[in-house]
């Protein structure tokens, strides 16, 4: 193994133990944070989290050891993750607020993973992810409300509509760069938000109300979920749906990262001109990054619309795009795990800061600025690509 920084490559037994314990520990921490109500509890947990990241910064081999352990026994890792994800609603029980937070966090994780294709892999700024998310939500909601199209059919249609939008934003991206490109995407985001806000058929500022709950094999998602006698609240339906989408996003991200496309994006990030000189079709890969982002974001938008059954333009503002961007940067660009952690942290943190009620946004802003100053490379920085066989 190339990682000379790690003192010892983990053996099989220790790898299994590390993998299971780490994931269980992570889940327990997440549960504790979700459960925390009082201000001091939140602060203690945040302090604990901060200490953890301090340890990671101080002893870099810790994270190498962890990643290698997880990668060494992929089956155990995946099985543990599956058990945790599937079992979480049972532990949470009837606490619908926690389930709600988890659903939103998962949807944001998908959005952040979507943006990661551009911002992380190819270093293309995109402030229009919120707009793609909104287009997905509105297209599917309008189809369901006006034509009674089923949820499962609106998913691909909304995704295609948003992908088209992604191509449309992608085209100016061939000519502009950096700050100028950022402004083009901001402009697209504002235009979409303003149009949604003004058109009559999108419900204007009031949005769309009464989006019907989806159903699968005769089971309506509005009904409580019955699993072998366990009764889970209706939110559990959407929790599992969102979890499935996260898995899909992770698999997509992984496959793309390891493909020629991911490599081309990384080449773009490293040096656009050098990439061009290597025969990479720069324009095409840039537009592709926009399209993939919009496609995944629309999935998240559709699930969101059907979950809350009420959408308005204010769910898809410029600030939403900025939040998604912050998740990617805070989590760690081009690091799938990091991006997901970033999304969970930044979704749950503002909710927990409700303990500080009115000062919530203020704290949120300060935390982000401090974070960017203290750890600019993100919680989990991107890892070098590894080629060749393992020892």
């Amino acid at each position, binding site marked *: 193994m190339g990682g000379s920084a790690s003192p010892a490559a983990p053996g099989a037994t220790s790898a299994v133990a590390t993998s299971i314990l780490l994931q269980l520990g992570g889940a327990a921490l997440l549960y504790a944070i979700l459960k925390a109500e009082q201000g001091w509890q939140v602060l203690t947990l945040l302090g604990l989290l901060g200490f953890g990241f301090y340890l990671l910064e101080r002893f870099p081999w810790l994270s190498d050891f962890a990643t290698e352990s997880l990668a060494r026994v992929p089956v155990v890792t995946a099985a543990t993750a599956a058990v945790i994800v599937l079992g979480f609603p049972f532990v949470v029980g009837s606490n619908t607020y926690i389930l709600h937070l988890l659903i939103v966090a998962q949807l944001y994780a998908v959005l952040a993973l979507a943006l990661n294709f551009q911002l992380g892999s190819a270093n293309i700024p995109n402030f229009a992810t919120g707009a793609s998310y909104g287009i997905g939500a509105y297209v599917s909601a309008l189809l369901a409300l006006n034509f009674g199209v089923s949820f499962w059919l609106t998913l691909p249609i909304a995704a295609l509509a948003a992908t088209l939008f992604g191509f449309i934003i992608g085209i100016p991206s061939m000519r502009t760069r950096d*700050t100028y490109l950022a402004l083009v995407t901001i402009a697209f985001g504002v235009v979409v938000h303003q149009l949604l806000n003004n058109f009559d058929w999108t419900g204007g500022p009031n949005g769309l109300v009464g989006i019907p709950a989806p159903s699968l094999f005769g089971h309506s998602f509005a009904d409580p979920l019955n699993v072998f006698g366990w009764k889970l609240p209706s939110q559990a339906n959407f929790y599992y749906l969102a979890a499935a989408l996260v898995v899909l996003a992770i698999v997509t991200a992984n496959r793309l990262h390891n493909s020629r496309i991911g490599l081309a994006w990384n080449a773009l990030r490293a040096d656009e001109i050098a990439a061009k000189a290597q025969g990479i079709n720069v324009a095409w890969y840039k537009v592709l990054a926009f399209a993939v982002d919009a496609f995944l974001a629309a999935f998240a938008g559709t699930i969101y619309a059907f979950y809350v059954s009420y959408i308005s333009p204010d769910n898809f503002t410029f600030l939403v795009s900025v939040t998604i961007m912050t998740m990617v940067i805070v989590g760690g660009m081009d690091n799938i795990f990091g991006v997901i952690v970033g999304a969970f942290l930044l979704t749950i943190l503002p909710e927990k800061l409700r303990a500080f009620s009115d000062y919530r946004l203020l704290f949120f802003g300060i935390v982000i600025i401090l974070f960017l100053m203290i750890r600019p490379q993100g919680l989990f920085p991107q890892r070098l690509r590894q080629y060749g066989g393992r020892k």
Partner: protein
Amino acid sequence: MTELLVQQSVNWITLGSIYALLAIGFSLIFGVLNVIHFSHGDVAMTAPFIALAAAQALATVFGAAAPIWLVLAVLGAVLCVGLIGVALDKAIIRRFRDAPAMMALVATVALGIVIRELIRHLYPQGSNPHAFPRLVSGVAFEITGVPVSWFALTVVGLTVLLVALLFVFLHKTPLGLRIRAASEDRIVARMMGISDGRVFRATFLVASAIGAIAGLLFASYAGVTRFDFGVMAGLLGFSAAVIGGLGSMPGAIVGGLIIAGIEVLAQTFVPEGASYRLVFVFMLVIVVLIFRPAGLLGRTIMEKV
């Protein structure tokens, strides 16, 4: 029809001047730091609040609300905001000088949130809109029966004066020369013995003070100020600076006039244009950047490998 045209032209020039002043701040800061200071609009919009608070304080201390207190308060606010800009640079923004551009963008967006929330919490009843007086009142003269207010004339005159002063400052003073050198190439400027700390301080002081003037004029034009005006002021000022070409002073002025122009046009000639004005503005931004990717007056830099 003529009256309408004249009336709207006056509105256009007034609003355009305000946007141009905002855009100049973005352009100046970007030119020197290569960083987008996205919270510049929020910094600028603190000025009306500071002025209101100061005017009130002066009036309570010295009794009787005299117009002189408002003038003093406004001047104080401009100075104060300039210093706030310097402080923010020293504390936060300069740390992102060498970071990837997007990092600075996100950090300053977060900074904008913090500034808005601080206004909301520190100013009494900060969540509500607050009336802001016309700084200059009265009608100067009439063209074809359309009254042109002293306020409009003041805005335009002040903008011309500030731009002229800025030009003299940048081109005729040693400090201006240093600022231009640093924006040309910071590393070489440093090798020539130019302390970049001073350059940054001066840039932020000037840019934030000009922004504060724009903020005061904007609040005065609208007759009201709100803690979240900074978002739109920032977006429109940033757009004006970008379509004009970042780092170019004439570009910022042209950009400001164009943005204000499309806004006024949309409001006047398009049915329901007032609610769609931002759509028109940002569509225009997209179109301009498709055809002129570096802005109208921006320099296209040939990249070397």
